[in-house]
């Protein structure tokens, strides 16, 4: 069964550095998402992407965050200048249609020191 894949599985970065989290959604999916889960807390929506543009974003997704689908297969989340509170597990997800369930990747654990 096709999967959403995320790389790296764990990334450590220093405060103020830029990070790019990478995702390869399932190939025939049209809707793409980033979620995050701070340790011990609930899964929070960050942003959704459809038809090559952001369709929704949460209050968490401020100017420090950006997303891109550079080549038709990858879907990236960039954090421009990381803060300690950005430390979390970041999940990428995709789905074919609005009524389809989300398929999640295994996540990237981001640790900001």
């Amino acid at each position, binding site marked *: 069964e096709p999967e959403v894949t995320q790389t790296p599985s764990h990334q450590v970065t220093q405060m103020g550095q830029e990070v790019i989290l990478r995702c390869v959604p399932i190939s025939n999916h049209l809707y793409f998402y980033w979620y995050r889960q701070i340790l011990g807390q*609930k*899964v929070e929506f960050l942003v959704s992407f459809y038809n090559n543009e952001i*369709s929704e974003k949460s209050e968490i997704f401020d100017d420090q965050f950006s997303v891109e689908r550079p080549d038709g297969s990858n879907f990236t989340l960039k954090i421009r200048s990381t803060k300690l509170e950005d430390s979390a597990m970041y999940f990428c997800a995709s789905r074919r249609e609005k*009524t389809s*369930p989300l398929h*999640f990747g295994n996540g990237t654990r981001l640790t900001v020191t």
Partner: protein
Amino acid sequence: AQSVTQLDSQVPVFEEAPVELRCNYSSSVSVYLFWYVQYPNQGLQLLLKYLSGSTLVKGINGFEAEFNKSQTSFHLRKPSVHISDTAEYFCAVSDGGQAGTALIFGKGTTLSVSS
């Protein structure tokens, strides 16, 4: 805006006992409802979903859930749990009328199954 409440943060049960994980939602529009499971150090895996039709939905691993519109609930049940069911369970809702709408998750319920 939608919201999801999972009333129980932790549910300890013994193996082979029945379990119910509670989920209530609030929304002013029609909704789609989902239950996801998260095993340690893994991503979220879909257990089951309700989009329309029969209010009793059966999912993987013997789980089922019932959509109750009047009580705005979508409780998850399993008649007999296994040790391997120990995980975090998340209820989620999305707007049934909008395209590409995000899922809103509850805070999760930790199911701990012991022998």
